[in-house]
């Protein structure tokens, strides 16, 4: 039966789609988000009117409390905590869908087969989303260990729980007694499976896991929509499911890893093994010179390309000479000299910048360099940080114009023309070993070719291998200046050095 309700629901779906359409440009995205939010609000009112629930004080009161909590959280959270906030909120959404399924199953009148099927699906997916997201948020907030936690027989237990969940779900679908007991059992199994799923994913694989869980929360909502026969909910859930799926696929491609390898923690096992043995991975070039000679990476001779600059703007030569002339100079002094002589500078931020909360200092450095007449851009790897687009948000927070933020594909062929690359807390995403080190987790991952730039300044905490466990031959290259230590402090030292 197509009622007035259905008509309005379709209008709201169109509104949501329109809002999302506006989200594809930073100029219109604020409006798009608000339109989508208004449509959800209208959906709530519409549902309350249609079901005759306008007088239910309990519902209004609960929503009031929830809105207050949501408002306080949104106002208080620091941008740096965004990944764990998204994870937590995502878990709440999934949890709500699972609870709805429990409610429908627990009704006095046993629902028909399609509804029971939808409930089971919503319960299972929602439960997994709830516990999985909370574990992921815990890892992102560093309350839980960053490394994958793998229990003895982890894969076996996961499979058993999953099979059990499917079995109990099937039992709920066929008409049997003890429906509520089975539903509770399914809930427990789903929650356990979510924990088993998320706990063995490592910290740096979180962007992918969060995307996946985001997709699942949408799917759970959609199933809940089937359970209560609400087209608006089905459509919105479907859109969210697609969104999460897209982000998951993009991230997997950008890190050259399969989803299965990530959620089974396998992508990290090889890394831990090689790191544990303390030997370089076979066929891994460790020194700079060997990198040059080995096939795969085509590193142009840096010394020769020094004075041939881009676009006719001859950058003042002599950076290398200056550095060579005073071998006693500290790395920061040398880095400052390089920056003074540079025309084009590219900053490569990584999760280390977020950890050191160095984005404000990076912004100051950006301002200083711009004042000095340098062209400064930022090269951002798709999987830098702990969620898709994490670096963009942190840099936007410190008011760096988004035109300066460049994607991997757009900037990767231009590094040869760059005078100085400043790496701030990034390691794996600039590791040239990704092109050569076969059989390592990093092999084949597209990386930023910073080694092609004339000079590289690395402001990382240390030279230890990154999350992927593969040593970074970049550190050994002769044209690389290492300014080790806390990124925030290094930035400040670099700034004061530039002011001299």
């Amino acid at each position, binding site marked *: 039966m197509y009622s007035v309700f259905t008509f309005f629901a379709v209008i709201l779906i169109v509104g949501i*789609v329109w809002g999302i359409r506006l989200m594809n440009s930073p100029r219109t995205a*604020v409006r798009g988000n608000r339109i*989508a939010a208004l449509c*959800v609000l209208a959906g709530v009112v519409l549902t309350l009117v249609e079901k005759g629930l306008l007088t239910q004080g309990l519902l209004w009161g609960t929503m009031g409390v929830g809105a207050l*909590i949501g408002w306080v959280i949104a106002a208080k959270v620091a941008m740096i905590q965004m990944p764990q906030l998204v994870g937590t909120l995502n878990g709440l959404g999934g949890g709500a869908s699972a609870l709805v399924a429990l409610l429908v199953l627990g009704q006095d009148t046993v629902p028909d087969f399609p509804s029971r099927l939808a409930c089971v699906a919503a319960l299972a997916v929602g439960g997994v989303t709830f516990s999985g997201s909370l574990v992921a948020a815990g890892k992102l907030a560093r309350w839980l260990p960053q490394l994958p936690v793998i229990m003895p027989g982890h894969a076996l237990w996961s499979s058993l729980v999953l099979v059990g969940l499917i079995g109990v779900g099937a039992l709920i679908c066929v008409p049997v007694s003890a429906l509520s007991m089975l539903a509770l059992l399914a809930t427990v199994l789903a929650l356990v499976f979510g924990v088993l799923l998320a706990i063995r994913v490592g910290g740096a694989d979180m962007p992918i896991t969060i995307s996946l869980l985001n997709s699942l929360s949408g799917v759970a909502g959609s199933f809940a929509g089937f359970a209560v026969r609400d087209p608006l909910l089905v*459509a*919105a859930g479907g859109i969210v499911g697609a969104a999460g799926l897209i982000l998951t696929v993009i991230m997997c491609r950008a890190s050259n890893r399969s989803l299965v390898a990530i959620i089974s923690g396998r992508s990290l096992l090889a890394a831990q093994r090689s790191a544990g043995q303390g030997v370089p991975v076979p066929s891994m070039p460790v020194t700079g010179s060997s990198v040059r000679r080995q096939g795969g990476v085509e590193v142009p001779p840096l010394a020769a390309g020094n004075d041939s600059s881009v676009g006719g703007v001859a950058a003042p030569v002599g950076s290398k000479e200056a550095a060579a002339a005073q071998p006693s100079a500290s790395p920061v002094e040398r880095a400052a000299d390089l920056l003074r002589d540079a025309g084009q500078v590219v900053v490569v931020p990584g999760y280390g910048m977020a950890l050191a909360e160095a984005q404000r200092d990076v912004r100051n450095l950006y301002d200083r360099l711009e004042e000095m007449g340098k062209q400064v851009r930022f090269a951002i790897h798709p999987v830098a940080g702990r969620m898709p*687009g994490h670096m963009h948000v942190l840099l936007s927070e410190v008011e760096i114009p*988004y*035109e300066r933020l460049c994607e991997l594909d757009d900037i990767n062929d231009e590094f040869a023309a760059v005078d100085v690359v400043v790496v701030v807390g990034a390691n794996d995403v600039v590791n040239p070993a990704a092109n050569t080190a076969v059989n390592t987790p990093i092999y084949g991952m597209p990386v930023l070719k910073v080694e092609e730039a004339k000079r590289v300044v690395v402001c990382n905490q240390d030279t230890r291998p990154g999350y992927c466990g593969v040593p970074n031959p970049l550190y050994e290259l002769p044209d690389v200046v290492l300014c080790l230590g806390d990124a925030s402090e290094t930035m400040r030292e670099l700034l004061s050095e530039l002011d001299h």
Partner: protein
Amino acid sequence: MGLVGLLIVFVLSVAVGYKLLSEVPVLLHTPLMSGMNALSGITLLSALVATAAATALGLRWLGVVAVLFATVNVVGGFLVTDRMLRMFRSDRAGRPGKTASMSTTEAEKRP
């Protein structure tokens, strides 16, 4: 709405969503994710309906929890997305005539 109608709605929305969302630039992926996350809290609608229909006291309380979770998800999600999106700033708006000034300083620098 009938089951078949709902299935059609589902398939259509996934297709339209996939098309629309693949056009969003990486720049906006975090706000996109948090916005979509907020949208998934629309399960609030089902929570409202199911809670109102629940008769047993225990189930009613479960429903209240569901409504609470979903509302926090929707309100928190949309507000934080709004906050994030308002941070994105354009070069052109903030710093007029920048490219021009850059080329002059570039020229000055040359000895």
